[in-house]
């Protein structure tokens, strides 16, 4: 008892103790409430970010569509917003975005799926332990570095095979973008496949199926809803990718679906305008928000599609 200070010994008797405890408790309750509200506000920041994105994109786009009718925006076949004879045909930028994404997905989806099946069903433990972190590293390389690689390594390489290929083209940008997206597709697909219960595989093996048959006819269909999410994420990445295209595909608007040509994408156009010095509030400034809104609508469409697919093919065990 000797270690307890004398003033505290005094309060440990009689009413003083209860009163103090109650006061302490009351203050604690208030502090607890205040902390919970502070934590809730931190969580609400994400909601405000979404509201902010929608607000900024829509308000600037509304100003833009006051100058340019939506019909013209959707159907015009030229994109020359900064010329005297201004045309605002988003199709031109959209064609670049879709073409480069198609090239990227033609690489990322097959390779990503094969890697996921291999790692989940075939690979020995050691290979998986090394390959997974490696793929993660591949996904962590900054996109500007991939852009440099596409422009100054892949394009010259392709030009040896096909000498007429221009220095800027959608093909090499799309190819590198595809490699960049592989880790996103493979890691989510693999997680989905590994979540398929062992009993299904065992059932399949018991019927005499080989690994390959089990993987393609039992595991992949069972995990399809997860694999679909992986594909959707891959598509979103491809559509929203910026630096690889801004560096390697050129910034010249070009209505084409030929990957061998240079073309600007929606994202590359935003970068191009941002690099210049457009005055705040000008029509040129507003175009990038209209372009951004188009991009958001595009990714949102794919996300909703993915949601529907997931619902449709969900298997529960």
């Amino acid at each position: 008892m000797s270690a307890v200070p004398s003033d505290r010994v005094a309060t440990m008797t009689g009413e003083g103790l209860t009163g103090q405890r109650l006061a302490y408790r009351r203050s604690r309750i208030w502090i607890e409430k205040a902390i919970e509200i502070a934590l809730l506000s931190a969580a609400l920041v994400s909601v405000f970010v979404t509201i902010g994105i929608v607000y900024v994109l829509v308000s600037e786009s509304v100003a833009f569509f006051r100058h340019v009718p939506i019909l013209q925006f959707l159907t015009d076949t030229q994109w020359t917003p900064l010329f005297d004879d201004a045309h605002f045909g988003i199709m031109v930028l959209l064609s670049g975005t879709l073409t480069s994404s198609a090239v990227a997905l033609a690489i990322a989806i097959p390779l990503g799926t094969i890697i996921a099946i291999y790692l989940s069903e075939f690979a020995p433990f050691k290979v998986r332990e090394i390959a997974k972190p490696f793929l993660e590293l591949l996904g962590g390389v900054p996109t500007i570095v991939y852009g440099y690689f596409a422009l100054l390594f892949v394009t010259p390489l392709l030009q040896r095979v096909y000498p007429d290929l221009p220095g800027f083209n959608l093909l090499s940008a799309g190819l590198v973008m595809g490699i960049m997206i592989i880790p996103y597709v493979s890691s989510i697909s693999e997680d989905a496949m590994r979540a398929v219960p062992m009993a299904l595989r065992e059932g399949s093996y018991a019927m005499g199926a080989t690994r390959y048959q089990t993987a393609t006819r039992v595991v992949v269909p069972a995990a399809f809803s997860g694999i679909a999410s992986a594909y959707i994420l891959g598509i979103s990445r491809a559509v929203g990718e910026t630096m690889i295209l801004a560096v390697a595909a050129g910034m010249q608007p070009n209505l084409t679906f030929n990957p061998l040509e240079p073309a600007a994408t929606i994202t590359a156009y935003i970068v191009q305008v941002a690099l210049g010095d457009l005055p705040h509030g000008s029509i040129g400034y507003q175009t990038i928000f209209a372009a951004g809104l188009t991009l958001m609508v595009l990714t949102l469409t794919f996300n909703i599609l993915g949601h529907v697919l997931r619902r449709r093919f969900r298997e529960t065990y």
Partner: protein
Amino acid sequence: MDAQTQDLAKIRAIIAQHKRWDAIFGIIGVLALMVGVLTFAALFADMAMQGLGRLDWNFFTAFPSRKPAQAGILSAWVGSVLVMTVTAFFAVPLGVAAGVYLEEYASKNWVTDVIEINITNLAGVPSIVYGLLALGLFVYQFGFGQSILSAGLTLALLILPVVIVATREAIRGIPQSIREGSYALGATQWQTVRDHIVPYSSAGILTGIIIGMARAIGETAPIITIGALTFIAFLPPSPVSAEFPFLNFEWLTSPFTVMPIQMFNWTSRPEAAFHVNAAAAGFVLVVMTLAMNGLAIWLRYRLRKNIKW
């Protein structure tokens, strides 16, 4: 040969064929992996071969210049460090607090649902859209201008979902008995969170923070969108000063450049000499992000091995 042995031979042939398919797919899988490995090897080797010659002390202490051989990344790496400081300052407390709220406090109601759906969706928003948000909101509406503060805030919002998800996953790994033990000793909810939940999940949270920062450091598009200049041959005002109060915050409003923007600038010039600089800057960038991601992976591996509740 009678019918039975003939059937047996047929079945054997089918089995052999299917087994061959197994082997073939195993090879295809390894080849697919090799595409990734070889691309990465080519990328790394190309950067190293082109850029290593330019990597000397001078490269880190010189400003960008019109003469490629004298140009350096001083303003770029200083800018990156300052922007990352702002990003971490906002993203870490906000992300951890949001993660703690969602795991420990949130009740199952529509507010929680809205927050959760939001975080999932934000993780899929293209990074350039964050740049547009920052341009409209931070640069013009709030009047922060094209400053380190605007860039840091933008990247903080960008990596917020990464930090939140990592925090939640780390907290989810803590068994309920820890909380019950704490409550049984009379601790309040906040005391439990502060003294038990957050400390025990700190390694997992740290992993998420490192991955988020590695992403932020290489992010180019949103920072270009807010209009960061590409030719900056000066440093922002120093955050530390000799007189009282020793710290000043003028640097927050200063124009700046960062490593990926400097690299983009050099890459998009036609002269090959600048491409060498771009390769050198890219090499530094790749090594930096690899080191950070590697650290995160290693941390996670250690964590998985050591903690047995």
